[in-house]
Each structure stands twice: as C-alpha cells, then as structure tokens.
C-alpha cells in the first residue's frame, strides 16, 4: 500500500498530471477517429519519449491507451463508425439511439459506463499486480516460455479470421525477430550479407511499418460510405441518477467480464466488449432491443472494454506479458527506456510499476471529464478529410523512425513493413499476432535456451513443472477447442 501511496504522491505533481491529461486528450481524439488508434499513436510517440523521464513516458503512453478505448464511443455513436475495434459493439446500439434523437443519452451512458468499468478494474490492477509479480518471481525459464506460447495461442484464437492464420502471423513475427545478433553468442544470423541488418530489424521501424503505415494504406484503399452524423449537446448529456442506477448489475457484471478477459494474455478490449454484450443480451428481459438502440447493450460494451484496459495492465506489469496488442507496444516502450519488463519491475523499478497503476486511475477520472465536455467537438474532428490527415501521419512516421535510428535504411524498412503489413492484413492475418510474436520472440528464445542449460538439455521439466504444464495445457485446449466444436457441430447436422 505504501509504495502505491508514494506513487500517487509523485503522480499528482504538475508535470505528471500534465502528461496524463495530454495522454488522455490525445487518446480520446485518436480513439475517436476511425483508422487511427492507440497503437498507432503510442508507436509514433515512442521516439519522442526518448527525451522524457521513464515514469513520465510510461504514464503518458498508458493515459493514451485509457483515452483511446473511450474515444471510440464518440464516432461509434455519432457517426456509426467505431473509432477503435473495442467500440464495434457500441455502434450496434449507440448509433440507432442517436438516430432516434437520443445521442446525448447514448453518449452519457457510455461515458459513465467507461468510467465505472475503469474504476472497478483498477481495484483489481492495484490489488492483484504486486502479489502476482511476487508469485511470478518463482517462475523458471520454462514457465515463462510456456506463458509466451499460451499468450500467442490465445491471441491467435480470439483474433478475427482463422486461428491458423493467427498462428501464422505469430510465427512470422517470431521469424522476423530472429534476424540479427544471437541472444547468447552474438553471432549475426539471417542477415544474408546485408550489413545494415547486423543489428536486426529494429523495433520502431518494424512496429511503425506493420501497425501504422499498413493502416494508412488500408485507409487509402478502404471503402468508406458517407454516414449521417448525429449531434449531441453537452447539457443534454447529464441524466438523472436513476437513469444510471438502473444499470447497476450490468455495470458490475460487465466490469468483471472486462477485467478478467483483459487479464488473459494476448486478448484485448474488443473481445471483452463482445463477450459482455452477448452476456447482457442473453440475460436481458428485452433482448429484441439489442441492435436497435438498447441502453443495456451500450452499458455492457463500454463498461467491459474500459475494464479490460486495466485488466490487461495486470499481466504487463506483473509478468511482462502483454494483455493486449497495445500492451505489446507498451512492452516495446519499457525496453526502449531500458526497463526490463517482467515481475522484477516491482522490485527494481517500483516508481515505474506503481506509477503506471496510479496514473491509470487518474487517467480514468480525467477521461470522464474530457469525454463529457468535449464529445461533440471531438466528433467534428472525425470528419477531417483523410487527404489532410493521412499524409501528415506518414510524415510523422518518417520523423519518428529517423529520430530514433538516424538511418534512411530504416525508413525504407518501415515502408517495406507497411506494404507487408497491408498484404498480410488483406490475406486475413491479424496484425496483432505478428506484433506479439515479434515482441515476445527474444523473451521466448532466451527463456527456452536458459531452461535447456539449467535442466541439462532436457525439455521434460516443461511438462512436469505444474505451472508450465498448466500454461501448455491451456494453449493446447485453445487449439483443439475450435476443432472439437466443429466436429460436434458436423455430427449434429449429420443426425
């Protein structure tokens, strides 16, 4: 408790509050604009954070994450375009409500839901992370390796598209990460004579290319239909207390769903929103209203997607395993700031670990006020023509890569990764699995090799140590479950 209180004391000083507020505002704006997102903005800002104190850098980036998940509500409700994948379910009921003249009500419920989801999940974040980190200090190399395997299989199984393609994306990310110096012997591998690749594919050009540039290409070639924009006035957004209170059980249930789905490594806020929405519909007395303006649908989706943000921070801080794709990028931020992600963060860098936890709460509060006061204005930003926005973002990509590496070769690499990322997306491979594979590959390799050295070249302990085998069994179940379900479905149809 004391380190957390100390962290709060540090986080409420002016510069920290400034960075949290800035992060939330940027996150809300970026989250509201379809085609952009927290991942893009965080990756773009990584080079700028080089010049910042590590704690300030991480709280800025985490605040962007908190803001962006909420920002998706605005365009989902007013423009029928989810600003982020986590707002897809909100679109189903938010926009129909807006078209009935209840845009302010829809936004208000969504904002309060986001706030409550963030608060409940923050309690889990504050309570669970330190003991989980202590427990994880007992993990050996095979436990970490199995955890990485489980995380990759999990994200492959829940990403859109087939699990097979998700696994291909993850393994492809692994393959790309192997180029460069070997972790143990420093032998340069897989550079095929290109000396520019002696250091491997650097994190930023690969991330910016695969994540940002590929999205820019997608936005340019994508298919946008013009939609009627709804409007909401700030004064109409303040509802009576009972309008919020009658969704009490929905808030609690959806918060718990979102938190626990967020904690699962590799899963993210979109899945949390989908599961919560489906649960709410199944339990609702008026399920027929879902999809045509149900308040319960908005509450369920928005509570869960925000709860998953803090839930995803739990494995990030405690285990060094990302709870979502954005968390994978945050791991990149930790690495860039010379911080070792993992359970040791609490003991070696408590200021950073507890600073992130404290900032997550304050960011949630600031998000509430920003969303209530600025939703209408932010919605107008969504209509900025892409012709002005996209080339500017590409310019910032170039600046970001060049300032971090000072090599034009990396800018060409960024462009190449952008094209590859676009092709990979079009082929139905989720980009998130590639990013996770790329980020986790060094961890997986070093842990596997450490394990082999520790256990005299034997892989058997991976199957006999209880925590390690638990992770592997979960991974195996995630692979086999869809196949078993398909088989059962076919035999039922045959009967």
């Amino acid at each position, binding site marked *: 408790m004391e380190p957390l209180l100390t962290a709060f004391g540090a986080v409420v000083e002016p510069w920290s509050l400034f960075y949290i507020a800035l992060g939330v505002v940027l996150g809300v704006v970026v989250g509201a604009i379809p085609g952009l997102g927290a991942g893009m903005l965080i990756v773009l800002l990584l080079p700028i954070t080089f010049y910042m104190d590590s704690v300030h850098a991480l709280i800025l980036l985490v605040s962007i994450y908190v803001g962006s998940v909420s920002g998706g509500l605005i365009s989902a409700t007013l423009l029928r375009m989810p600003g982020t994948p986590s707002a897809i379910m909100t679109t189903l009921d938010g926009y129909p409500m807006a078209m009935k003249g209840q845009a302010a009500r829809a936004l208000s419920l969504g904002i309060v839901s986001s706030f409550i989801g963030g608060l409940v999940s923050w309690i889990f974040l504050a309570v669970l992370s330190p003991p989980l980190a202590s427990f994880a200090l007992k993990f050996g190399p095979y436990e970490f390796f199995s955890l990485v395997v489980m995380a990759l299989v999990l994200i492959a199984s829940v990403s859109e598209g087939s699990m097979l393609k998700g696994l291909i994306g993850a393994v492809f990310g692994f393959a790309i990460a*192997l180029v460069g110096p070997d972790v143990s012997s420093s032998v340069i591998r*897989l550079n095929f004579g290109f000396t520019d690749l002696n250091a491997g594919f650097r994190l930023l050009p690969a991330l910016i290319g695969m994540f940002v540039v590929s999205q820019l290409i997608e936005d340019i070639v994508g*298919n946008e239909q013009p939609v009627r924009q709804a409007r909401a006035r700030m004064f109409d957004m303040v509802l009576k207390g009972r309008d919020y209170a009658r969704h009490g059980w929905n808030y609690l249930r959806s918060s718990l769903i979102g938190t626990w789905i967020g904690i699962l490594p590799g899963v993210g806020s979109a899945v949390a929103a989908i599961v919560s929405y489906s649960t709410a519909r199944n339990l609702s007395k008026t399920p027929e209203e879902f999809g045509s303006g149900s308040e319960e649908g908005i509450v369920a989706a928005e509570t869960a997607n925000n709860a998953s943000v803090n839930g995803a921070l739990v494995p990030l801080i405690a285990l060094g395993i990302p709870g979502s794709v954005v968390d994978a990028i945050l791991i990149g931020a930790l690495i860039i700031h010379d911080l070792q992600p993992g359970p040791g963060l609490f003991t070696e860098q408590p200021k950073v670990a507890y600073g992130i936890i404290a900032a997550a709460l304050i960011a949630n509060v600031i998000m509430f006020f920003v969303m209530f006061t600025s939703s209408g204005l932010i919605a107008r930003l969504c209509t900025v023509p892409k012709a002005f926005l*996209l080339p500017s973002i590409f310019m910032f990509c170039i600046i970001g890569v*060049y300032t971090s590496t000072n090599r034009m070769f990396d800018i060409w690499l960024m462009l190449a990764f952008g094209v590859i990322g676009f092709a990979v997306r079009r082929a139905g491979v989720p980009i998130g699995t590639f990013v996770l594979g790329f980020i986790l590959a060094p961890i997986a390799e070093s842990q596997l090799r450490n394990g082999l050295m520790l256990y005299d070249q034997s892989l058997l302990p991976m199957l006999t140590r209880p925590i390690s085998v638990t992770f592997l069994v979960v991974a195996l179940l995630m692979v086999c479950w869809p196949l078993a379900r398909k088989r059962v479905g076919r035999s039922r149809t045959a009967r």
Partner: protein
Amino acid sequence: MHRSRTWLGDAALALAMLGVALLLFIGAADLPASKYEPMGPAGLPIIVAIALASLSAILLILALVRGRRTAPRVERKQRGHVKRHRMLGIAALTVGYIAVLDHELVGFPVATTAFLFGAGALMIDLTVRRVTVLVGVALVVGIGSSLILTRILTVTLPGS
C-alpha cells in the same frame, strides 16, 4: 467453374510463408553450432522454420481443397474512395519522397511540403477551395513541423 478469390489469397499467403521458412532454413544452415549450450544460434530459426512451413502447408492444402469446390464468384468490392491510378500515384510519390530525402536532393521542409500537397491532391477531387486549403495545410504542417523540430527540439531530420 467459378472460384472464390479467397482461396487464391490463402494460397499466395501460404506460398509466401513457405518462402520465408525456406529462407530461415538456408540462413540457419550457415550458422555455427554452439560450444557452450545445446541449442545454439541455429536452434530457434530451425524450429520456427519448421513451424511456419507446417502451418503454411496446412493453409495451402486447405486453400487448394477449397479452390477445387464450385463456389459463386465473389462480387468485386466497390471501389475505395481513391481510384486505382491515384493509388499508384500516391505509391510513386511516397517512394519518390523517401528517395529525395535519402539522396538529400532537397531539404526536408521542401520535400515534405511537396509530398503533403501531392498526396493530398491525389486523394480528393480538386476544387479551388480544396486546393487552397491543401496548400495551406501542406505549408503549415511541412514547414511548421520542420521549424519546431529543428529549432526548438533540435532534432535532426532526414534530408538535411
């Protein structure tokens, strides 16, 4: 017989990944064994190559099996809001922009302003008003960001 375009995409993806797996095998073959630990630098590349090749082979088989079945032709998607020749223009402009910076033919502010205007112009139907706004945005963002980054943040930009 009509074929779904999806199976072609899947087959292309599978073949591309098989190519990556082959590169991993070739690259790993040149790596020395380690004296000090069992796996060595070639260990994980070979494991990853086998995994990638196996998954890609499964995808290829599934794609070919799907392709042999009769399937309704997939309707062509509606065009995106940027026509194909304009997309090619944006691609050429982007490559040209990076090449100009790489060879330091002109400075960052000039190259960037030209790129922002050119790319923006290719993405919209031009009217006098839009051209005016586009020129303004290109100048403000291109030159403004360059000044802020170099004079205030003292960052080195490409092309300088």
